[in-house]
């Protein structure tokens, strides 16, 4: 039982549904005149961002502020960290400042684990190296549920939905968290990528694997595109961006082969023209814009539950 959210594996199926249901309730906040709740008044949430990520940081900041928490932003550039202060010393400083929760994004896998050993408050992993990004998986699951099961689908998981995740799985924390969470929620997950971008041990993961994107498209309810970094080319993961795009890029022709109800997702930021064509990104199937709004509500739900004393896994199989 941990008072942190570090890996999607920390959440039982009931925990995940609870978070989605809570987010569903909080979503209506956006329609109210006062878009704020007093629940976390007097609590301090620190955003500890070692990697530049304005989008995620702002999302967490908005989530915490809408719950009336005080937010302190600590970014690595130009700070004591840039002068060589260790993660441990930074953690001790945050402790001294009385942080109730620390949201950490860091370039090293396991940084959130290490931080959790040094602070009293709750740790939310906002992305550690190539390990995990659990709130991304939560907002993705929330988006899928809303789009494919409707906004009233309280108590529902994602049973029977087929999700295909495409791209650089090997280096993707979004992929790891999504494989874990989606399968916990009952979805069938397939990874589509060239063999070089899949971990050798992927056979032990709760998902199927395919090297052929085209064969997966007609069966997919959701296609989730991962960002592919151009630098991977120099390490011989694939011969050229052109070939990658040709074999694994989601263009308009491939989008047309999706079932009518299917949606296209992307955690952002996108490489338009590489893994996803512009017209696909801008189509009605695309959830890319609403993923951002959903990010705030799911992060509000996560903050509320964690700072409200919940420890994951909190609920059993069927509670």
């Amino acid at each position, binding site marked *: 039982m941990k008072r942190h959210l570090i890996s999607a594996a920390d959440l039982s199926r009931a925990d995940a549904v*609870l978070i989605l*249901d*809570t987010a569903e*309730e*909080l979503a*209506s906040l956006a329609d*109210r*005149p*006062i878009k*704020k*709740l*007093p*629940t*976390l008044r007097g609590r301090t949430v620190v955003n500890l961002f070692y990697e530049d990520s304005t989008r995620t940081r702002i999302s967490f900041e908005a989530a915490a502020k809408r*719950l009336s928490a005080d937010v302190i932003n600590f970014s690595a550039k130009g700070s004591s960290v840039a002068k060589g202060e260790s993660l441990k010393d930074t953690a001790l400083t945050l402790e001294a400042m009385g942080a109730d929760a620390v949201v950490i994004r860091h370039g090293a896998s396991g940084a959130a684990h290490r931080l959790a050993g040094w602070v009293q408050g709750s740790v939310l992993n906002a992305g550690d190296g190539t390990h995990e990004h659990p709130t991304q998986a939560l907002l993705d699951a929330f988006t899928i549920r809303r789009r494919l099961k409707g906004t009233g689908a*309280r108590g529902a998981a994602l049973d029977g939905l087929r999700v295909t995740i495409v791209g650089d799985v090997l280096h993707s924390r979004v992929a790891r968290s999504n494989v874990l969470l989606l399968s916990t929620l009952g979805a069938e997950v397939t990874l589509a990528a060239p063999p070089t971008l899949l971990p050798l041990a992927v056979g032990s993961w709760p998902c199927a694997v395919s090297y052929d994107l085209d064969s997966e498209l007609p069966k997919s309810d959701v296609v989730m595109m991962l960002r592919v970094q151009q630098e991977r080319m120099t390490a011989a993961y694939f011969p050229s961006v052109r070939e990658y795009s040709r074999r694994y890029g989601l263009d308009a022709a491939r989008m047309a082969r999706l079932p009518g109800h299917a949606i296209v997702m992307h955690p952002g930021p996108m490489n338009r023209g590489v893994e996803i064509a512009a017209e696909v990104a801008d189509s009605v199937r695309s959830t890319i814009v609403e993923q951002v709004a959903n990010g705030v509500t799911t992060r509000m739900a996560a903050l*509320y*539950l*964690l*700072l*409200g*004393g*919940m420890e994951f896994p909190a609920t059993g199989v069927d509670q």
Partner: protein
Amino acid sequence: MCAASSPVAGRDGLAVLDAEQIRRALTRIAHEILERTHGGDGIILLGIPTRGVPLARRLAARIGEFERLDVPCGSLDVTMHRDDLRLHPARALGRTDMPPGGVDGKTVVLVDDVLYSGRTVRAALDALNDLGRPRAVQLAVLVDRGHRELPIRADYVGKNLPTSPREVVHVLLTEVDGQDGVTISGEGRRP
């Protein structure tokens, strides 16, 4: 409504209201609401989850029968406005369902099953505040068990039930529990 008129044995408790008594109390409250709001003009019933919600619906139905009036009815979850987050672990949220038209300028009648410390109602007033500006707010409860910790009082009460703080009041409603009844358990009360 069920025909039984004998006391209902609740969860190892003494029955204090049976189904018939509940029915009569709600009928009385419905009439009182109509009296004190000039015939239900501009009212909204908001039930506080969990059991305040079916009670609000039943009241709305009664009022509709008496006056052929369509009373807007909804639910107001107060979990996020409670003052005891640090004492109890975070709970799952209930549904907040605002009827169309909102609360601005309306007379909101909050509906709950039991009135005790008054903290739930205080949270409801806070939550209501963030939703808009009602003309007036009133409170209807099925049971008032005393022991207020805040200066809060109900406008409409189904039954006044003096209790000791060590006792527990259980309200059972068909929509939630499969039967109607109010029982009390604890020291000094034997079935």
